[in-house]
């Protein structure tokens, strides 16, 4: 597959984690068709659960809006090829 350039739209994630997000997305696009958004999302979420602990959420698509609460430093929204990617970890709070 052609190597596309990912564009970060919004994030509060550490740089290293951002790179991992885009790498996981590229990897998923190599494995699955661009129309199979659910499999792409599953691949990325599982990767993040493995590397950074459980509780990650992933949404992939070409037309969606959303509202969510995320843990600090765990949110990234970017575009790659024709798709938009949202990755975040569910809300936590400090004791």
């Amino acid at each position, binding site marked *: 597959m052609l190597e596309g350039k990912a564009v970060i739209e919004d994030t509060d994630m550490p740089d290293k984690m951002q790179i991992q997000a885009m790498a996981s997305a590229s990897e998923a696009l190599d494995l699955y068709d661009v129309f199979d958004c659910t499999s792409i*999302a599953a691949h990325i979420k599982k990767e993040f659960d493995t590397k950074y602990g*459980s509780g990650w959420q992933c949404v*992939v*698509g070409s037309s969606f809006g959303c509202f*969510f609460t995320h843990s600090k430093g765990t949110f990234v929204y970017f575009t790659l090829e024709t798709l938009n990617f949202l990755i975040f970890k569910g809300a936590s709070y400090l004791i």
Partner: protein
Amino acid sequence: MEEAEKELERRSKFLNSLIQKKKKGIEQHEHESFKVHVRACDMPLPLQNRALQCARLHLESMPPGNKLDNKRLALALKKEFDSSYGPAWHCIVGTSFGSYVTHSVGGFLYFSIDKVYILLFKTAVEPLDH
């Protein structure tokens, strides 16, 4: 003969107005009856009904022909559920997306209303690792 013509004209106008009223009624009815389809669910029925009603009311409140604001609908649903059933709820609205999520038991609903797909789910609120 003139009186007959006037009577015919009057009846014709009356029929036209009836037709117009009926058309308006049909349009209104069509607008109100958004087709709802629950596609996947792990949620108590009262919460389901709450979500469906909230989404329906939001769509109905928009002027006909206006494009749906996905983000606004997502916000409305999330806020309602956060305040009614505790944090933290997340909502995705759109016509073309896939997702893979981890949700709390009893906190997942995926449905479509008209041409829009809506995913609403809850995650546990946990202390951060130190």
